[in-house]
């Protein structure tokens, strides 16, 4: 799948999870079974087509009956099929029922980004997991169907709005792999300023940069399988620093909050529509927006805490002139402190 570890075999990506070996064994079992059957059937067909080709003096024999033969090839497959079903179902249960000691990571999918929320509340747009530890993903979608797919882990599961789905795995080696969306979820080519540009990069971590055409295919992320200590470091680093201050009853300093807000703007997928450069995307750019008088469909408003808070929780309430009412609500998906941090971040962009 990626440049570090080339495909394990010609047909299958590298094996990075405990179930992979089992799945691949079954895959190749069916593969060779198919090869044998295929060669037998097509071989016989071609051989007979030539041996018994129409030619002077050669006449077809009337078809006879051979009940044993017919019964044989009706019944024999049943045994193979039962075996396949049994192995397949076994493997399926193995990858469905998570062990109780699994680390639980929440996955929030939305058009068109992934967010991974770790037990300590910190979140990132790339998935970091420890090696040799069972990890259980509890997934939910804010808008339409998505599907969480990691080839090297051999896992895939649809993410359904209005319902939680889960998938679990235990990585067997450190490394990276791609996370793809496998359930069609639409796309966007048009920004308010007309057609968006498009140019994929060769950076395996970010092949599709924001501010371009986006959609189903661009819902790309990465899973990093790390040693336990690296994972712990990472989780700590994304943990909410403001929490520390709050826990001591202090107010979180602006710059710290702003830093947290920046992380949120990525993990919550804000950057997909709002730039911080002044460039106009689907939503207004955040550059210099703080304290500005914006004209909306409900009249002019001052961009302050209240307006930003409202725009996050009830985006349809006031639409800045010249923009579509396309932003989904984040109510229920973002906490008040998080909103404060975003506000601090937007403030800092002045």
């Amino acid at each position, binding site marked *: 799948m990626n440049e570090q570890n080339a495909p394990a075999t010609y047909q299958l990506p590298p094996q990075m999870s405990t179930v992979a070996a089992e799945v691949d064994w079954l895959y190749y079992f069916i593969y060779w079974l198919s090869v044998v059957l295929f060669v037998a059937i097509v071989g016989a067909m071609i051989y007979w087509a030539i041996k018994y080709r129409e030619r002077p003096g050669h006449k077809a024999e009337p078809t006879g009956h051979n009940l044993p033969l017919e019964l044989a090839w009706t019944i024999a497959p049943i045994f193979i099929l039962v075996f396949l079903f049994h192995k397949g179902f076994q493997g399926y249960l193995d990858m469905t029922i998570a062990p109780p000691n699994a680390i639980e990571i929440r996955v929030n999918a939305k058009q068109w980004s992934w967010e991974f929320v770790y037990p300590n509340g910190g979140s990132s747009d790339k998935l970091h997991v420890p090696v040799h530890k069972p990890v259980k993903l509890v997934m939910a979608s804010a808008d339409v169907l998505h599907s969480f797919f990691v080839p090297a882990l051999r896992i895939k599961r649809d993410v359904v709005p209005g319902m939680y789905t889960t998938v679990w795995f235990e990585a067997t080696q450190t490394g990276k792999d791609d996370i793809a969306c496998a359930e069609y979820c639409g796309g966007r080519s048009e920004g308010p300023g007309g057609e968006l540009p498009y140019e994929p990069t060769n950076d395996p971590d970010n092949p599709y940069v924001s501010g371009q055409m986006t959609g189903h295919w661009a819902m790309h992320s990465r899973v990093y399988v790390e040693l336990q200590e690296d994972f712990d470091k990472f989780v700590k680093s994304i943990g909410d620093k403001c929490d520390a201050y709050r826990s001591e009853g202090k107010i979180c300093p602006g710059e710290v909050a702003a830093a947290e807000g920046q992380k949120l703007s990525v993990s919550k997928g804000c950057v997909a529509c709002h730039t911080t450069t002044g460039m106009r995307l689907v939503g207004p750019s955040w550059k210099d927006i703080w304290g500005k008088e914006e004209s909306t469909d409900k009249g002019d408003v001052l961009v302050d805490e209240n307006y930003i808070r409202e725009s996050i*929780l009830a985006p*349809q309430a006031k639409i800045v002139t010249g923009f579509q009412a396309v932003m989904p609500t984040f109510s229920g998906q973002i906490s008040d402190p998080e909103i404060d941090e975003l506000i601090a971040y937007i403030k800092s962009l002045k």
Partner: protein
Amino acid sequence: MANVSEVVAGAPGSNGDHAHPHPDFLQHHFDTPAQQFAAAKLGMWVFIATEILMFGGLFCAYAIWRALEPDVFDQAHHFLNKILGATNTVVLLFSSLTAALAVRSAQLGKRTQTSIYLVVTIACACVFLVVKYFEYSHKIHLGLLPGHCFGHPGFSGAIQSGEETGTCLRIHADQPGGSPEWVRAVDEDGHVQLLSPRANMFFALYFVMTGLHGLHVLIGMTVLGWVLVKNIQGKFSTKYFTPVDLGALYWHLVDLVWIYLFPLLYLVGKPE
């Protein structure tokens, strides 16, 4: 061609068969009226099977949601009037009877009688629709019309949020921590009920199922009307009454569907 095709005078199905005359109602590709009749009947029954499966989708949705949310369905079904439902059932059953009698008199070649029975059948259909109209308008008045404006008496909600694509329900759902509207209304037993937004599902199924059924009533009326005209023109006889038979079959189907809709929507659930 020797043994694949040869002329055997009188053999069933042979074109050379002059055993019985070919009346003008007999289509060119049939050999006997009986064959044509059997084909028509079978065709109609297969069509009825397709109709059942079409309604089947709705019955499936109903079964699923009722199993998942029994309380909601139980609570919501008190908003349907058992008496009106039963009345409509009897009306349809009676129309079925007259339809069957129409076929009978057609088989016996009693033209006027057939016409009378058909007229009665169509009349019953009208009665059924009128009653349905009153039921519908009452629900809408209570604000139980499913969909965007569920919980907004007489569409007022649509007007309230008219500027926003009229999605009353969704707008409520999108408000900060907001929940869709709860409907407070008086049910048929005179109790004030607080309906969860999930009750929308029950009324969605109620309106879609009865709506599709109502559509079939209309189609049935049209079909029977056409049969009536043909009958008055004297197109039918004891030898040829297929359209009357098929029209009646269709009408019985409409009756059949209602026989199931009535208990599922009106009666199932805990009594007060």
